[in-house]
């Protein structure tokens, strides 16, 4: 299928600040691709450039092989939720969707259908300014789906939603991808991406950090470990080192062993006749992997400029 987003060497500067720096990636159909990065890392700016709303300083962003502004029927090819409040507060939900339908010759029946899909039928004739953030998100999602597009972009779609709404969005995104659509969804919530996305594009400070699958991302960064609690830490650490494993002492006096399977650790304990109170295999979380990667990015940048390092550590704190 050719419905893809293709970003090539995309760069955006605001004055002397670089929001997005030489970013390249592809988004493929049929899976949910997560766009992960701390707040202020350039996710929204990148999405705005894909949508033709921000003009890149250099580089290109193509949708279905074309710049967004050259699409024949934009809403029928690409749907986007970029801003929870991208509607006029005095206009009703129905009228908001109606004018959007007119722009791309979408039949009005589709408006009623979508109001039902997102659960806003009862408030269709209420002014959107009276909506909660969650209802606003639902209206935005209805706008994105209006033209039944093959490519969908969602910028932080679960912001302001209650747990039920979050689950609804998650299922919606996965359902859209399962229909063969290209789904590109940004988030600063790592846990959310772990549940929703199949592929990940990770950025930090406007630059690409990783373009991979969720599975590979966690496996490669951080990796799995075995957590051991023992009264004789010293002997245990020495034994592990002899066996070629790596150890890391946790603040709670447990020991994390890397480079060995839990079976190997258990056998080592038996052969060394050590007392062990607890032995737990620990799967590295996406969060750990993400923290590790963005920390690297920050350190890398701090070599070049003190200012970047300061801003970088601030950005990391937001996670």
């Amino acid at each position: 299928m050719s419905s893809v987003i293709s970003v090539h060497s995309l760069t955006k500067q605001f004055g002397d600040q670089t929001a997005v720096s030489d970013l390249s990636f592809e988004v493929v159909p049929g899976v949910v691709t997560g766009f992960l990065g701390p707040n202020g890392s350039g996710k929204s700016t990148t999405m705005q450039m894909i949508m033709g709303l921000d003009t890149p300083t250099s580089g290109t962003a193509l949708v279905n092989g074309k710049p967004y502004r050259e699409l024949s029927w934009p809403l029928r090819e690409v749907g986007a939720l970029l801003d929870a409040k991208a509607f006029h507060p005095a206009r009703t939900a129905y009228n908001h969707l109606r004018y959007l339908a007119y722009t791309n010759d979408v039949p009005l029946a589709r408006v009623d259908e979508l109001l039902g899909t997102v659960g806003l039928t009862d408030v269709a004739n209420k002014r959107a300014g009276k909506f909660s953030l969650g209802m606003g998100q639902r209206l935005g999602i209805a706008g994105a789906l209006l033209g039944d597009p093959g490519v969908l972009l969602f910028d932080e779609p679960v912001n302001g939603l209650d747990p039920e709404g979050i689950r609804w969005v998650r299922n919606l995104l996965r359902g859209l991808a399962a229909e063969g659509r290209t789904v590109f969804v940004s988030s600063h919530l790592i846990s959310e991406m772990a549940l929703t996305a199949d592929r990940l594009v990770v950025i930090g400070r406007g630059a690409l950090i990783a373009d991979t699958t969720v599975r590979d991302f966690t496996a490669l960064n951080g990796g799995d470990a075995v957590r051991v609690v023992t009264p004789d830490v010293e002997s245990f650490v020495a034994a592990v080192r002899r066996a070629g494993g790596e150890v890391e002492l946790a603040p709670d006096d447990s020991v994390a062993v890397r480079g060995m399977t839990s079976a190997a650790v258990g056998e080592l304990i038996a052969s060394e006749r050590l007392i062990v109170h607890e032995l737990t295999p620990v799967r590295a979380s996406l969060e750990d992997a993400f923290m590790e990667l963005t920390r690297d990015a920050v350190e890398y940048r701090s070599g070049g400029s003190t200012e970047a390092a300061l801003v970088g550590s601030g950005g990391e704190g937001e996670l």
Partner: protein
Amino acid sequence: MISATPAARNRRYGLRQACRAERAKLFSIRSTWWTLFVTVVGTLVVTTLSTSSAAHHGRGWYQGFDPTNQSMSGLAIGALAIGVLGALVFTSEYGSGTIRSSMAATPRRLRFLLAKLIVVGAVALAVGEVLTFSCFALGHAVLGSSPVPSWSLTDPGVLRAVVGSGLTIGLLGLMGAAIGAAVRRTAGAIGIYVALLFLLPLLLTKMPGNLARFTPLIIIANSIAAVVRQQGFVSPAVGFVLFACYTVAIVLLGAVVVTRRDP
């Protein structure tokens, strides 16, 4: 993917779709109706007051009196309100974030701008013509029993003054919209518009050279809406040309900002 109607297939979205959407947008917020209400009622009230004050004088009082011009005096209010309507067409979108929905749906910015101008221009022109003819009728009703000079629509210059004044309301709607497109903020756009209409002539009258006669509102009041030619003001023809030039200049400025500056 949605199946387009056969006629729509292989085409792309164009001005027709954009205009239809703009019309739906304009009439689906309450502020539009309020602004139009103020435009119409304000104009008619002022015209009523102004013509009433000129009624029931002796025959000698009406020497050189221009009843058409007197009837159009309410347009000062209409001119103000229609510019606000125009400005809101853009500033309400930039202020609310709707602009991103709209530009995602109509990404060709010149087409987007043009659709807005066509719709608000057409509405302002229609309102303007209805208003000037209403003012004319109102003036006749109020001044009917007074010994005013003849001023039927068939008299020289009368129809031109009535139709021409309505046209300037249409152009003022465009000016307001283009200022809104350039400035993006409601308060700023209305401020600039009011300054252009009311403050500029006040400032210029304090200065040598009688430059105030070249400002938009003075052109309407003393050139275009005048049947009896007044000394010290430009002719109706020159007034029209100047007015059109101002509109084109401000619209071009708005177009440059909309196409060059991201939302």
